[in-house]
């Protein structure tokens, strides 16, 4: 629980980390009450790039809101779109062709890898290593090129449609994806050598920021933050949606509860995503990518619908309250980083500033996604 920070006359001082600070990856601000290098108390201030997506959702029709989702999280945009299209399809009873479902899963996993790669680079950069960022970006570039060739944009894809997809994938994409998988595996070995095994890196992260299961539960943490604390929770497995039950993949869980565990979870997830892509490409059925009969105007029946999906950053939920009109009555976007970030204030107490910032990096923050 954060409490307001009052200026102490002496002994402690307030350090204002952000809104523009190299470690906060965006416009996040943390007011830290410091005792030397130690954090006595901290209060996170968010909302600097709040755009009120939820109100936009109420004002726009369902298809018009599609592109907003990718603006929420610019690194793992497709995961968020997936949640949104799934809830609307569920509400209005649109059947999605199998091929579209498979392509969605492949795309989301590719996007997840690209997001994790970026996180990996940025995280190591937080710890002072620059070159891994560039290597990660090189690998990410291959993914972005593949996605661009199919979706038409590199970052804020507006690719999923209610009932299907905007574009079908072609053989070029399949070839590129097949070539990408072994290359990525090779890169993972490189990262393992360069970063994971590095003694400086390990010493910094081992035992850094202990997060108990109970803390995770009370704050609703998900993604690697929860899985690094020994919680076997992945929406793809716990509440299977789309075609995920048809894939054989593991959920990496580490029980050390420290930043290294969170790091390891994400790195292992890249491998699992590669497995999903591999299987998806093998199993990819032929067929249409849009349903044969799709309602001209999307008007879900009145009611309350919820859909959670596992995005790169954790469990993303969309609550759709429909009143039967062509615009949602209420569209709540539950962003995973919002909950993950909330942990920070409580956990960083008593830590040194450099450890706290390493911990902040391990949370995988994307500020527009917190602020929505």
């Amino acid at each position, binding site marked *: 629980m954060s409490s307001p920070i009052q200026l102490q006359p002496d002994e402690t001082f307030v350090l204002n980390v952000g809104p523009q600070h190299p470690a906060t990856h965006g416009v996040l601000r943390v007011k830290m009450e410091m005792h030397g290098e130690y954090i006595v108390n901290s209060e996170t201030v968010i909302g600097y790039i709040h755009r009120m997506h939820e109100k936009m959702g109420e004002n726009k029709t369902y298809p018009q809101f*599609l*592109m*907003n989702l990718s603006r929420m999280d610019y690194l793992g945009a497709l995961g968020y779109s997936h949640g949104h299209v799934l809830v609307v399809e569920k509400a209005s009873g649109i059947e999605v062709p199998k091929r579209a479902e498979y392509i969605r899963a492949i795309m989301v996993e590719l996007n997840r890898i690209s997001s994790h790669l970026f996180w990996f680079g940025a995280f190591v950069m937080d710890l002072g290593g620059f070159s891994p960022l560039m290597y990660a970006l090189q690998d990410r570039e291959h993914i972005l090129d593949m996605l661009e*060739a199919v979706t038409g944009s590199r970052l*804020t894809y507006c690719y999923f449609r209610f009932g299907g997809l*905007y574009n079908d994938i072609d053989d070029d994409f399949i070839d590129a994806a097949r070539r990408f998988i072994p290359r990525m595996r090779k890169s993972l070995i490189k990262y393992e050598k*360069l970063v994971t095994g590095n*003694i400086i890196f390990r010493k910094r992260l081992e035992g850094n920021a202990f997060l108990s299961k109970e803390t995770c539960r009370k704050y609703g943490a998900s993604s690697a933050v929860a899985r690094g604390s020994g919680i076997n929770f992945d929406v793809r497995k716990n509440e299977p949606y789309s075609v995920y039950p048809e894939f054989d993949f593991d959920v990496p869980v580490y029980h050390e509860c420290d930043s290294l565990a969170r790091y390891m979870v994400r790195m292992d997830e890249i491998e699992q995503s590669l497995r999903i892509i591999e299987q998806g490409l093998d199993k990819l059925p032929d067929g249409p990518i849009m349903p044969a009969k799709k309602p001209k105007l999307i008007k879900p029946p009145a009611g309350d619908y919820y859909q959670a999906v596992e995005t790169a950053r954790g469990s993303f939920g969309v609550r759709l309250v429909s009143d039967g009109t062509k615009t949602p009555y209420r569209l709540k976007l539950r962003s995973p980083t919002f909950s993950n970030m909330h942990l920070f204030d409580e956990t960083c107490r008593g830590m040194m500033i450099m450890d706290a910032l390493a911990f902040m990096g391990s949370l995988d923050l994307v500020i527009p996604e917190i602020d929505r």
Partner: protein
Amino acid sequence: MVTYFSDIYNGLISLFIGMGVTFKEFFKPTVTVQYPYETLTMTDKYRGHVELIENDEGKPNCVVCGLCARACPSGCITLAGEKPEGAKKKALTKYVLDFTRCSLCGSCVESCNFNALEFSKEYNLASTRKEDFIFDLLQRLEERNK
């Protein structure tokens, strides 16, 4: 005592392995594109801003149904048309795209039933003036035809 020395040993080894990785990378070719001097061509499906498609006579395919303007989430399309004497279809007189608000979602192209809109492959769109991004597509079409 043993762990003390094995820690130091393993640590040093890990550092040398890391340096080996960067050493190998040092001799690999560069992968970047020198942007202003080299440029990439966009893929077929690249979504730039929209352009009008012309028919054989060099006139736009557009029939001024206004579906694109209605589909646009940000309201960046304004179009007008009039029906010339004796013609069956409406002719486009004005088509303005406010690119400052466009989010390149492609709803307009998707909503078009008359094959009148396409994505341009243009991506070098830097300017210091806001007015430069209010595109008169009809005018652009004429300029293209010249």
